[in-house]
């Protein structure tokens, strides 16, 4: 790891000010990706601004079906929230399968979303839940937030403070893990609203990161059952091929995971 300077603010305002004063500053949430990246000398922030000690970034609020999750809420806290479980068990289940127990004790929803790893789980949930990413300066629709591999709509110094969404009628997430890293090789989050609207978001497979699959959404809107996607084709041309899986196989997995998510929802 290269040299860096650590800061520990206690408010969002202080954090923003610290990052503004840094040459190449980075926010440090749980650090589960950033520290590993720095250890491999693939990132070299001059300054790290730790968000773990800002009380206003933490906590889960459920109001009717309206959900607010503070950005610094850990995966463990999302997974084990009874309030959240009551309205949107799918997101609890998703959080309970991110990384491993130790990673879940440190990693946060805000950190995961800001990083936008193409194999991360949360971005799929954000898209399918039509979530809003709340920052210190604005609100960004998930649809506009994830802009490419490890790319988001966040400006320099902008900080995610919370995630909000309305809990759907039905939702589930199914992932097929990479046998080595256990990240999603294809992960599908499905959500169905009371009005019949369906969203299907796919992570781990797209060559440009998380995406929605309109074909399956339309099919499932017409018929909310696993069989509905049987005849839908998933185009492999925009999917990743790597050491672990070809695009064609990922296309196959997307369909299977979608079916299983619908069955589980």
């Amino acid at each position, binding site marked *: *790891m290269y*040299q860096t*300077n650590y800061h520990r603010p206690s408010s969002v305002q202080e954090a923003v000010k610290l990052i503004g004063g840094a040459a190449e500053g980075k926010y440090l949430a749980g650090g*589960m990706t950033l520290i*590993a990246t720095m250890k491999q000398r693939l990132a070299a922030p001059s300054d790290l601004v730790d968000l*773990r000690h800002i009380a206003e970034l933490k906590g889960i609020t459920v109001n009717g079906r309206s959900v607010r999750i503070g950005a610094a809420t850990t995966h463990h806290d999302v997974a084990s929230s009874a309030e959240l479980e009551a309205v949107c068990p799918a997101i609890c289940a998703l959080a309970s399968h991110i990384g*491993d*127990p*130790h*990673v879940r004790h440190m990693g946060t929803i805000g950190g995961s979303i800001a990083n936008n790893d193409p194999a991360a789980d949360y971005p799929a949930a954000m898209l399918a839940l039509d979530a809003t990413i709340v920052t210190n300066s604005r609100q960004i629709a998930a649809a506009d937030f994830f802009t490419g591999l490890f790319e988001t709509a966040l400006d320099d110094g902008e900080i995610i403070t919370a995630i909000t969404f309305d809990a759907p009628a039905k939702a589930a997430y199914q992932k097929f893990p990479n046998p080595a890293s256990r990240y999603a090789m294809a992960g599908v989050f499905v959500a169905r609203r009371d009005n019949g609207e369906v969203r299907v978001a796919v992570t781990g497979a797209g060559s440009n990161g998380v995406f929605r699959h309109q074909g399956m959404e339309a099919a499932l809107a017409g018929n909310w059952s696993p069989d509905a996607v049987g005849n839908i084709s998933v185009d492999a041309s925009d999917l990743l091929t790597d050491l672990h899986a070809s695009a064609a196989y990922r296309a196959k997995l997307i369909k299977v995971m979608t079916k299983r998510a619908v069955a589980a929802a």
Partner: protein
Amino acid sequence: MAKITMTVNGRQVSGTCDDRTLLVHFIRENLGLTGTHVGCETSQCGACVIHMDGLSVKSCSILAVQAAGSSITTIEGLAKDGELHPVQAAFKAHHGLQCGFCTPGMVMTAVDMIARHGSNLDEATVRAELEGNICRCTGYHNIVKAILAAAGEMGGVRQAAE
């Protein structure tokens, strides 16, 4: 350089280190507690698992400065008054270790796992909960057995105390 203070195994300790120093290196080198190990750089093997403020974490993925002010338990802090912790005793009774290198992380993981699940653990849950800990010697068979035995024993102890 940062001067940091934290509580480790019940004792307050202070030390000076680079901001870039990982918690595991602070524990091993500054504090001389070499029971916590490093087996990879990608946060997967779990040889470095400790407890920070009561939760299991990977000390190779946390800066020492991040842990300033917190309360840390390492493998050295588990046995009390020379008596093995029930999880340590179960690992010994069930041959849940061979070379011993992953063992501190496994034991710290098991203690955390049992704290969260109590004696309701079953084999499938234990295996799933071990996702962040790699052992190359045991094939996990006896680790799983030891954790289930310890969970049963600790559950039993808790019930008796209630």
